[in-house]
């Protein structure tokens, strides 16, 4: 157990965090909506230049709620949270692209943006845990990814529909070529194979093994995994550690990653390169809970205390950059990183880590 005083403040912080999250759910997570402008002058062909999306964010949010439910069991306010997660699963299912195979696109109304494996992974993870009936929606998209995978299990992030000569395929190919770029994105690979593991670990066992081995071998010399689409080292590293743990592979890589996380913790218990960041702190904490190293409990306790200190009066946490879009990647020269951040997303991750800290007395097997 953490100390009693921290336990009491944790209880209070968690209650307020859940209040905030449920309030955002009531508002259909409007705060988490991501908008960007893709001008026609730049070659985009969307009906509207201003594109808006929330499906990926809501899929991830609901996955985080499922994590909380896994930790909490049937206790506390799980009934309310479960209801939200189920509702969100239905929403995500309803946002599957109807006009092309591949599943879900981050900006579904932007013709140049193909469906992607990361969005597919978010949807599949959610369905597997809270709405199994929707898993079948993902079947064809999963097969498309696996069919296009390389021998080591890596694959392209973009799930291109069959080359049927349609204009849609043309737009997407142009988008990949000129805007989004191609190649293996480790964060997406880890996310995808973990989703398969949740959905059907027997059927996809071989693919998962290959994917996990590839992830283990892609670890950076500093113990972290570099993300393409997420800000900071913690989020991608957390996705990779999650896969390795559940696939029971890469123990050495995991230990190295845990040590790296310990070393980068700030004196005040937080994580963040230039300043304490709630999201970076929360995700690092979450990843550390799988470590069996001595001293991890103390590190997590300090982090939990720091998160409590950083919580706002309304139960939320200050938004932290989450998603990044490397503009110029397709040309081989990244000009800028367009980032996306959300109070709701940040707060959900922080809440999940505090719930885990409260249950620290019974570390996962």
């Amino acid at each position, binding site marked *: 157990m953490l100390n009693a005083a921290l336990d009491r403040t944790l209880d209070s912080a968690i209650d307020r965090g859940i209040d905030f999250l449920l309030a955002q759910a009531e508002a259909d997570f409007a705060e988490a909506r991501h908008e960007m*402008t893709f001008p026609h002058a730049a070659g985009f062909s969307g009906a509207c230049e201003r594109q808006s999306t929330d499906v990926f964010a809501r899929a991830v949010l609901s996955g985080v709620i499922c994590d909380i439910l896994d930790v909490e069991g049937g206790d506390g306010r799980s009934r309310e949270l479960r209801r939200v997660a189920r509702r969100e699963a239905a929403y995500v299912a309803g946002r599957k692209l109807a006009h092309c195979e591949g599943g879900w696109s981050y900006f579904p109304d932007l013709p140049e943006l193909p469906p992607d494996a990361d969005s597919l992974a978010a949807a599949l993870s959610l369905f597997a845990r809270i709405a199994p009936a929707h898993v079948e929606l993902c079947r064809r998209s999963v097969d498309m990814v696996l069919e296009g995978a390389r021998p080591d299990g890596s694959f392209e992030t973009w799930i291109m529909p069959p080359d049927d000569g349609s204009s849609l395929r043309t737009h997407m190919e142009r988008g990949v070529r000129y805007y989004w770029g191609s190649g293996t994105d480790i964060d997406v690979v880890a996310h995808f194979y973990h989703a398969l593991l949740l959905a059907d670990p027997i059927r996809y066992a071989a693919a998962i093994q290959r994917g996990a081995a590839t992830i283990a071998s892609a670890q950076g010399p500093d113990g972290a995994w570099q993300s393409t689409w997420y800000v900071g080292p913690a989020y991608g590293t957390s996705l990779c550690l999650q896969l390795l743990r559940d696939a029971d592979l890469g123990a050495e890589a995991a230990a190295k990653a845990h040590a790296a996380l310990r070393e980068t913790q700030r004196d005040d218990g937080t994580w963040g390169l230039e*300043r304490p960041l709630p999201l970076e702190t929360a995700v690092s904490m979450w990843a550390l809970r799988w470590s069996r190293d001595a001293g991890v409990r103390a590190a997590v306790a300090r982090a939990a205390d720091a998160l409590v200190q950083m919580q*706002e009066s309304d139960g939320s946490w*200050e938004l932290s*950059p989450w998603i990044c879009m490397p503009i*110029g990647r397709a040309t081989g020269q990244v000009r*800028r990183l*367009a980032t996306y951040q959300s109070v709701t997303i940040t707060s959900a991750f922080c809440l999940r880590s505090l719930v885990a800290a409260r249950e620290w007395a019974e570390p996962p097997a």
Partner: protein
Amino acid sequence: MSDLTTACTTCNTVVDQIFNPTTGTRQDQVISGDVFFPDQCFVRDEIRFLNGGRLIFTPRPTRDNRDKLEYLDTYYVICRRLTIIGGFKAGDNPDTKFLRNNVITWKDRIQSAKAGNNFGSAAANGPSFNGAWNDQGQGNDGKDGGTGTPGAKGNPGANGRDAPKQVVVIALEVEVQPLSHLVIDWDGQDGGDGGRGQNGGKGGAAMNGRIGQSDTTWPGTGCDRQPGNGGNGGNGGDGGPGGDGGNGGRAGDIIVISAKEHITTGAFVNGSVDYVNDGGAPGKWGGSGTGGAGAPVGGFAGLPTSECSNASNGQAGVPGSPFPTPPLPVDIDPNRGAMGLPGNPGNSPSFQEIQAGTCADLLPLPMVFDATGLVPNHFCRGFSLPATGDASVTGQNFAQATGVTASLAGVTPSIKPLTSTDTQLDLHFQFAGNSGIGACNLVFTRDFGANQTLNNALTVGKFELLSVTPNNGNKGNAVSVTISGNCFDPTALIQQVLISGLSVNVLNVVVVDEHTVQCVFDIANLAASGARDVTVKTGLFVHTKIGGFTIN
């Protein structure tokens, strides 16, 4: 009534227990640590302060309430002999009043009055800010944290208790070993220090600057909103002033009663004994509360983006200051804790000569005579001539004897100083030719205290012929006579019996003992009839009985 008489009255029972010549049980006490004494009269034969002994009078339960303790007005230290070994002068060591020194004092003196309570918690922290940025301009700065609340004034210390009115120290003899000291501390209790002021509250946390916002247009070229600067951390609240110090207690009086030499030039006035009764020290004002900590860090700058410039972190809060501590001009803050007032002093120590005719007479050790008494104990003078004699007596405590007198008139004893010791007195006697005879008491005078008598120490006789038996005889006969009297000396070289007139020879004179002489009167036929005088002579003494023998 003198202080000594009062002491005798007050401590009569205890003094009698200790010093009664017949039933008294004289007790010594070495004081080398703390001796807490709950009664009024500390009476011992000898009190020896040794390398830091403290005799501490303590209060005792009242008659009405056993749980309530009270001091009496006066306390007494009574002894025949006071010995001082070790210790410091009162000012030689900060602890001299209390620790590791030879001290006579009272219990509350060895600890200050209760200090004021310290505040258990600091003043309220300043508020932290979060939740809403200043909504102006592009980059919205974080709000500063609130300043902590200044601490409150500490609680005052308790006033010191007044000392009991006086302490009386009675010592017939005093011995101070070289470089040794005793402190008689009958000062008032020191006032309690004021409580510590309340600590200031911590500064509140500042708000982070708002995150920057890049252009959300693909591919984007600029910064939609600059990141805001972090707010400054709240300053800590200042510490509160300490509480007032308590007033010192009033001192009591110190009275010393001893032999004249000790209070005029001796130990009680030559610096070997220090007297402290100038009033209990005032309590100090309490320490200031510490300033509250400033917020350790300012708010962080809002995160920049690739198009936005960097903002600044806020400054950490400034710690609060403790309340200014004296010395300060009084007008800086009239609310700061005040020093207590010193207690009123007692009167200057007074010194009185110990007086005979009081219970002090019992203090000296009694002279103890061995059962053998005076040796020899019988003396003779001439029938009308003076005589002298020497005698001795053995025993204890004879050094205090300063003179001797006899109960018989004409008997003058004297102490032979050159040969007398503490255990043997050698005496010389002069017997006048007309001195009294019979049993005689010897009365010894002492340095201090009542005379001490050796009853029937000797008997005095005079050389005297009392009768001749038979007291007549016929002519032509030899008559054996027995002469009775006193102080005949069988050992004298000269042993003669004479009869007046002619024709009577005295033959075969034998001094049988002190009272009897036997001899033969050989009466010739030619002896004239009539009364004759009979004279006895032994040694230098001679006595004649007129008409002591008749010739028929």
